């Protein structure tokens, strides 16, 4: 960290953290308020918009029919893609997707596969012939820290709005008949991510804003459904102490319950 940044960090600690306050008025472990809107995009099969503080993320899900992989003929696809366009943040250049977008994409896909967010077998229409492909596109509209948290909420609430029609497939004639009998997807679990910024070995901040993320020495994300943990992700950076991990997990579990209530309240 350079001297100017170090100076800013020290001032931030003295002026705010030592008084158990943050620049936006929250306590150290306070999360920002979130607002959620579902079915906002009519051309998509499922969609949601989430705003956590100033971080805004929109998720749209498109359902398509496709052919399954030969090695797994009875499961459909759930493909998540996160885009951080240059309009959302000054540090992202237009052009090829930035590293952070790719890392977030890969992380979301990994967690979705690990915790079996939805039974992919319910996306199968005819074994080895026809399955549903759910492509979930997540766009960040405003990058103000903790984008990962927002992506998870957006993805979950959008998945809950997806209605798939019943499809009849004739094996002999390859004929596809869509019956207008829509059914909701069944989700197995609701993983909620909570990001924490490690300021130094004394202070951790829950749900850091972009400004705070820049000052933090490392980031730590906990994915949990309030009970089990799905991921404790710390991609490098400075060290974190054991009791800090413990606290983070505790706050993340409480946060997961609040987010579950939020998701429930919009349905």
């Amino acid at each position, binding site marked *: 960290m*350079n*001297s100017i940044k170090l100076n800013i960090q020290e001032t931030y600690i003295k002026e705010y953290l030592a008084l158990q306050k943050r620049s936006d008025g929250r306590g150290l472990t306070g999360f920002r308020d979130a607002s959620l809107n579902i079915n906002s995009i009519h051309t998509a099969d499922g969609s949601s918009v989430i705003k956590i503080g100033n971080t805004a993320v929109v998720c749209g899900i498109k359902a398509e029919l496709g052919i399954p992989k030969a090695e797994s003929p009875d499961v459909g696809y759930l493909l998540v893609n996160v885009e951080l366009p240059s309009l959302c943040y000054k540090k992202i250049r237009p052009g090829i997707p930035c*590293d952070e977008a*790719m*890392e977030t*994409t*890969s*992380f979301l*896909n*990994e967690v979705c596969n*690990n*915790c079996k967010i939805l039974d992919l077998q319910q996306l199968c229409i005819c074994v080895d012939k026809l399955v549903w492909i759910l492509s979930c596109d997540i766009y960040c509209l405003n990058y103000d820290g903790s984008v990962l948290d927002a992506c998870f909420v957006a993805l979950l609430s959008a998945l809950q709005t997806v209605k798939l029609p019943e499809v009849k497939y004739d094996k002999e004639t390859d004929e596809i008949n869509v019956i207008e009998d829509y059914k909701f997807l069944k989700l197995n679990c609701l993983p909620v991510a909570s990001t924490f910024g490690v300021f130094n070995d004394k202070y951790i901040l829950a749900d850091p804003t972009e400004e705070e993320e820049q000052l933090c020495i*490392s980031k730590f994300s906990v994915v949990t459904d309030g009970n*089990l*943990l*799905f*991921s*404790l*992700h*710390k*991609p*490098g*950076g*400075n*060290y*974190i*102490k*054991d009791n800090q*991990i*413990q606290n983070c*997990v505790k706050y993340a579990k409480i946060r997961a319950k609040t987010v579950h209530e939020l998701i429930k309240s919009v349905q």
Partner: protein
Amino acid sequence: MNEEFLKCRLGFIGNSDGSAYVSQCKTTVAVSVVGPFEPKSSKCLYDRGTVDVTFRRKTGSITVHDKMLEGIMQSTCEEALIVEQYPRTSIAVTVQEMQDRGNLLATCLNASCLALMDSGISMHHLFAAISCAITDSEEIILNPDELQINSSVAYFTLVFSSSESRQLLTSHTTGKFSHSIYLQCMDKCFAATREVFSFYENMIKKQLIYC
């Protein structure tokens, strides 16, 4: 952990500033470090050096998942190096997968630490990575093989620094698990990293005798 577990050859590439060829069980990785050198002016930072980690698969191209591993390696290496000592320069670390039979991330991280040590670039601390898998019966297997990883319920890669107190640098997990089992794994992995650090020490001692 037996003697045969880690094998390493330092300085196997003549033209790079530091290199390591590491095999951990059946997984093998080659790492070369070049730098500090003068980068393009767009990558130049006036107060610190930049660290560039490139991860390469056997096939040459990498996927989105590999990009995440690359990001983890990058931020772990960057934190270990004293980048402030090398302003306006760039340090390039190239990690080449030779054979992947499980624990790839841990091997890559250990290999890059050894290569950085070999290069002589100033470092704050060393780091060592250990992978462990958890079976259905909540049994913890350190350095699992491919089969054990595929049949496990959770799989962790944890990185600790070389300091006496327990400092977790990086954590990458897959699967479902409870917090208590995570703490148990941390204890076991931390103990295992001590052996990796003594391996590092022996390796460097041997290197110094040859010189």
